[in-house]
């Protein structure tokens, strides 16, 4: 689609503010009622989904221009997708997130990007990684002591896909290593792509660099297919979303599992047993791309059809993404199964969870905005009285670890895998 294809949606937005707040029935108080990091930080309407619809109309009509301010506004979106869920509470026909990302692509096509985006995309092009400064040659170093099959050389059907963050970040690598050991310990025959392991490029898609995403995705799909992979297991929520939703749109048909889904299954089958108690109160942060954006892709092709004169529907019936079928229970069930763990919930959870701030490449392109977004979540986590915030995404963990709330308070941040490892 092109930006102009979203024109009917732009003109049918009713300025209801659903994109700015958590579902109104879920509001427990004023402090954590809002749910758009972008307008939360920048405050101008332009930074909300509603404002973005209106901005697109003005751009298409030639009233507004892609100047520096507008370019920054367009790219200052974490693509967390809450606006889309909030909108769909009462509006069934508007694809708000898809529009936001298309708007970014429109800017990219017109050469309007942010300075912080260039090294990310350059690194993707040259080194197949979206972390600036990392090298292709170092990608598999994290796995050198693990006994995983190289699926290009040995036969196997389950591929472990760590993603860029776990592959390169020295502080995080041990989480991926633990995940592999956990799965192997439970008898999973695990392999990886070895030299063919590359960035999924999901974040390029979130940033509006569609060409770079497509190029990388096509290449990866070929590599997976050549290796005979039937199942991908990943500990990264961004990669999970990329394979589950974005690659699926390109016709990629493999089973995609996040590590928490696999571990939860193994615990319930009795293949992972805990021996230690961890006396901790924790709260769980739902990564956007595992939760509301982690719903499976359902192929659909059709067109709009009006019934009863003016009521908008699609023919055939179009799949509806409410965010409710994302991965929410598996990580919570794991935490509840660990002896000693007391799970407490924040106000913004599941399909209306607050973003960590790293999405859409904003941790690289808009570091202050990204850090503020993470700080807001830290404040919310601390308000529960939890000792630690647990998550299931390296981008979330890293962004939270490096941030603090407005009063400078921090919180210990753990991956679900780390807690499982501790309890074995």
């Amino acid at each position, binding site marked *: 689609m092109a930006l102009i294809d979203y*024109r*009917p949606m732009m*003109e*049918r*937005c*009713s*300025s*209801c*503010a*659903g994109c700015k*707040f958590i*579902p*109104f*029935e*879920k*509001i*427990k*108080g*004023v402090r954590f*009622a809002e749910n758009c990091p972008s*307008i939360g930080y920048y*405050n*101008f*309407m*332009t930074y909300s989904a*509603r*404002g973005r619809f*209106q*901005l697109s109309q*003005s*751009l298409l009509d030639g*009233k*507004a*221009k892609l*100047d520096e*301010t*507008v370019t920054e*506004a367009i790219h200052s979106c974490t693509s967390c997708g809450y606006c889309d*869920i909030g909108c*769909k*509470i*009462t*509006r*069934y*026909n508007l694809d708000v997130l898809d529009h936001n990302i298309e708007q970014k692509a429109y800017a990219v096509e017109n050469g309007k990007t942010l300075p912080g985006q260039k090294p990310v995309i350059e690194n993707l092009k040259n080194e197949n990684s979206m972390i600036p400064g990392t090298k292709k040659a170092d990608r598999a170093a994290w796995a050198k002591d693990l006994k995983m099959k190289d699926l290009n050389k040995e036969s196997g059907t389950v591929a472990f896909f760590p993603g860029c963050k776990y592959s390169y970040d020295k502080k995080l690598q041990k989480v991926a290593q633990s995940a592999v050991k956990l799965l192997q310990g439970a008898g999973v025959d695990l392999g990886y792509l070895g030299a063919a392991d590359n960035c999924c490029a999901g974040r390029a898609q979130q940033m509006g660099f569609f060409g770079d995403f497509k190029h990388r995705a096509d290449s990866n799909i070929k590599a997976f297919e050549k290796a005979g992979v039937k199942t991908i297991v990943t500990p990264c929520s961004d990669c999970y979303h990329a394979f589950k939703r974005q690659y699926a749109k390109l016709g990629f048909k493999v089973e995609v599992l996040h590590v928490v889904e696999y571990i939860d299954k193994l615990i319930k089958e009795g293949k992972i047993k805990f021996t230690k108690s961890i006396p901790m109160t924790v709260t769980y942060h739902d990564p956007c791309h595992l939760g509301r954006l982690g719903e499976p892709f359902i192929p659909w092709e059709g067109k709009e059809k*009006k*019934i*009863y*004169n*003016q*009521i*908008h*529907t*699609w*023919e055939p*019936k*179009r799949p509806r993404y*409410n*965010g*409710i079928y994302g991965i929410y229970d598996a990580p919570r069930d794991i935490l509840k199964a660990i002896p000693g763990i007391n799970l407490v919930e924040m106000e913004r959870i599941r399909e209306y969870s607050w973003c960590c701030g790293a999405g859409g490449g904003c941790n690289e392109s808009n570091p202050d905005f990204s850090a503020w977004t993470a700080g807001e979540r830290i404040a919310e986590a601390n308000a529960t009285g939890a000792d630690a915030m647990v998550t299931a995404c390296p981008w979330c963990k890293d962004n939270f670890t490096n941030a603090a709330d407005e009063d400078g308070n921090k919180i210990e941040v753990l991956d679900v895998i780390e807690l499982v490892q501790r309890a074995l």
Partner: protein
Amino acid sequence: MALSREIYQALEAVVGKRNISENIGVCESYRSIPAQSSAHYGPSEDWTPRPQAVVLPGSTEEVRGVVEICNKYKIEFKAASTFWATMGYIGGDCAIQLDMRRMKKIEIDAKNMCAIVEPFAIGATVQAEAMKVGLNLNIPGVGCSSSTLANFSSWIAFGPNSISMGQGSENILAMEWVLASGEVLRTGSLGSGDGWFCGEGPGPSQRGLLRGIFGAAGSLGVCTRMAVRLHPWPGPKDYPTYGQAPAYKADFGDNFKCYTLCYPTWEAWARSIQYFYECDVAYSGHRQFNMFGRDLKGAMLNIITNPDGQLADLNTLVNDPYIIEQNAKMKHEYQIIIAGMTKRDMEYKEAAVDYILKQTGGWKSEMMLKKEMHDYALAYLTRLGHKNLNFVMCGAYEGVLGLSSNIWKAIQVAEEATDTKKFWEQNHDHIAATGGDSAMGSLSGIGGGGATGWEFFTNFDAYDKESVRGTCKFVDTTQALHNKYGFGPDFCRWNSDVRHMNGYYFTQEEHDEMFSKAAQPWVFGYQYKIREIVNPNNLCGTYFRTANPSKLEAAGKGK
């Protein structure tokens, strides 16, 4: 016409560089598209004008600073918070928009049963904070996504709870108001330094001057803080919901019931409402789900309570014999919530409902008694968080046939109004065909009972210009019906004397001419005198209708 550097820098010095923008793209996002929301003068294809700058003040002092600059340089300004209604947008070329979203504080004074709110405190957040101490507020029909302060200070603000809690003007206590002149006015007990608990003080009612019954829609300055009256809430303190998005439901326990009460005739329907006015047992009273139309409401209720429901399911559901039967039984209906302060109180209220049904030959809708449907309706009406389902069918709607009067008068034209709309649905394709009668609104727009607050929802497609233009023609038809019965301007025409269809305000000269022909021209002459005091440079738009007394005199309208 861009602001001069001198003016821009003066504004920037007040609010800080981060909180002002004159970027065209940013300012473009502050234009109202009156085809998309209920503007009450359209629908119109033209957007309101682009402001020269957008300013985000963070305190009363900053608002005052901005207003003083506007007066010094004679720049029009308008404040808005949640930007749903076209009323909040500017209407001239040399104008700035104040976006109040940085001011969102809520302070609950449980002892005095009031909440002190800033402009961006929305109904949902105020209610959530109030419920923590066992209190609640009137959330008007616009829904909980809108600013409580803006609703109460600047518009009518009636909703489901108005029957027990009253409308906006009945719920305002003390206010802090930056008058359009730049002077800060503190009303009621606040003006005497005694806190927020009382709206009135010595002398003429400042509350009456600043808002009257309708409110001035932001034309007299910027209300920056307001105390709103809170009312008892016998439910849970944390508003428990269950169910999957978007069909959230609420179970408050045995002391809450939401009934859809149905009657054999409009006469019985009206008589039952009269009983509810008299016996004082309704916590909330609203005709809500008829907004989907007489023929579609049963099907729509089944769609919106199903997380996987879609509008494409309408065709199947509308033809379901059970739903056809339920629709027939719900022809003359409304929703009532009863809430028991004690078990005995609840038993009394249940008995009162049953007695009213017996007296009027009414019944409870069986479909709406199903637990999931009941709990959805309860959540819907107590928080009004799904109010934007108003737009779900077509993306836009306008309220027409606003029969906001005595119930006995309204029912006399209910079927004629239904036929008028149904004729248009069947003979034109500009508006959604929902079954003619789509009248919805409050059982009582004022506390204790009295005038209703009805409108027939008319759904159309803001993207389809033929639909927009056709709806305009339909609105002419409904106005003709209003004229026939002497009901005055239809709901959809209430603001047609404020803005031209191109979004620009009428000038003072145009208003002088227009209102000199009004039945009571000196109402507008009186308002002119008020405006001269609080808004001497006439900088906040024309929703506060005025006529220059000298022009009225010259037109022979007396003195």
